[in-house]
């Protein structure tokens, strides 16, 4: 038979006999004797009892400490104030960050179309999500192109075949407009605007003759071009188209941008 350890005996004593060693103690005289000795020792330990406190003791304790206790309400209000200050700081910082991000976005956005106008060809038709910038580029070019074309046609209408000084810039301008006209024609293939497409085709024909005529522009050639222009009512048509297309160019540098195509 395994006897109870000292720890088990102590546990049995403090558990007021409810421990699991009760049965063993009834059966084992040796452990019962050890337990009786332990109980005798522990029961003999009479330590001094705390001195009695009168009924007013609690009141005295309260009086001694109450003066040093801050009210929770006041502390909460302070914490609320600190919390509000902290919250406002976070809000201000967040607003600053949002403003900075917005301003950076605006700058970036402002820069993007400019780059596209100067260096990139119009986007592929499949990229529908880029439609707004594509449309904007076409409109800017088209309106600018029609402006320049109108001026050229006016100059051509009043041109004098004897003045080489006048005809040479007309040829140069026609060459420049011819390249721009090709781009506009390509873009017009995506648009359902037959009037504009027809006008651009006629303009293309006229510009090509003006720019690439063999042997330069003599009086006969100039007269022929002026007649074609009149018969086609090309100048009138360009003016009508120009008035139909809204001028959505930004206020700065648009003309020069349009001219660099």
């Amino acid at each position, binding site marked *: 038979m395994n006897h109870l350890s*000292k720890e088990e005996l102590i546990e049995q004593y403090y558990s007021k006999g409810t421990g699991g060693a009760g049965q063993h103690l009834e059966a084992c005289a040796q452990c019962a004797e050890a337990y009786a000795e332990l109980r*005798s*020792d522990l029961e003999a330990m009479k*330590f*001094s009892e705390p001195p009695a*406190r009168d009924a007013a*003791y609690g009141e005295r304790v309260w009086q001694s400490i109450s003066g040093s206790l801050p009210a*929770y309400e006041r502390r909460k209000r302070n914490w609320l104030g600190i919390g509000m200050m902290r919250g406002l700081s976070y809000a201000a910082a967040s607003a600053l960050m949002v403003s900075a991000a917005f301003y950076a976005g605006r700058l970036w956005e402002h820069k993007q179309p400019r780059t596209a106008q100067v260096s990139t060809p119009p986007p592929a038709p499949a990229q529908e999500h880029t439609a707004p910038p594509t449309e904007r580029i076409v409109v800017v070019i088209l309106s600018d192109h029609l402006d320049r074309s109108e001026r050229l046609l006016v100059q051509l209408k009043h041109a004098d075949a004897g003045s080489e000084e006048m005809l040479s810039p007309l040829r140069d301008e026609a060459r420049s407009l011819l390249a721009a006209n090709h781009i506009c024609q390509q873009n017009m293939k995506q648009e359902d605007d037959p009037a504009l497409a027809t006008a651009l085709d006629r303009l293309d024909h006229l510009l090509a003759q003006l720019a690439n005529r063999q042997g330069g522009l003599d009086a006969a050639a100039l007269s022929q071009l002026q007649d074609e222009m009149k018969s086609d009512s090309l100048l009138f048509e360009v003016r009508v188209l120009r008035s139909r297309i809204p001028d959505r160019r930004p206020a700065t540098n648009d003309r020069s941008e349009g001219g660099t195509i």
Partner: protein
Amino acid sequence: MFRMGTNDHEAIRAVLGGDREAYGILVKRHSQSLFRVAFRITRNESDAEDVVQEAFLRGYRKLEGFESRSNFGTWIYRIAVRCALDKISGRRWDDSSRVAEENDPEQEQVQVADEAAGPDRLLLSGEIGALQEAALHSLTDTERTAFVLRHMEDCTSEEIGAALGIPPNAAKQAVFRAVRKLRSRLAPLRMKR
């Protein structure tokens, strides 16, 4: 206005709501029990009173962390035990009349010397209680507190562990060690009984 019949949780809600006076109800209600345990640990009336005040001050500062499902009496009791331990820990280092006798490597706490005279003289003068007090004083702080809470306050191992901030099994072992040491020191008295 709160009366003494107000239960602890209502009083705590009132305190946290800004009614500082409601804490007075808790202080008056639990001062006696706190003084009793504080005295049993510190063995000094003045120190015990200091411990009671300190415990209620700490309790007030921590009141926001008190969980409503807990028992305030048990909660403040544990705080008082910790305060009492702090008190005797500080007092021991201030008390130059007592010297270290041996170290308890398990607890890493210095034991104070048994300042009692021989058992014969104590028996003759009828100062058995003084010898017992001295034996109790020879225990480490943890052992003594665990023993006091078990032997006098009738606390369970779980309650002792919670009060001392140690696992229940460690609290039980501290009680075992305390009983063994006390019996060993008080063995001469057993022979005379």
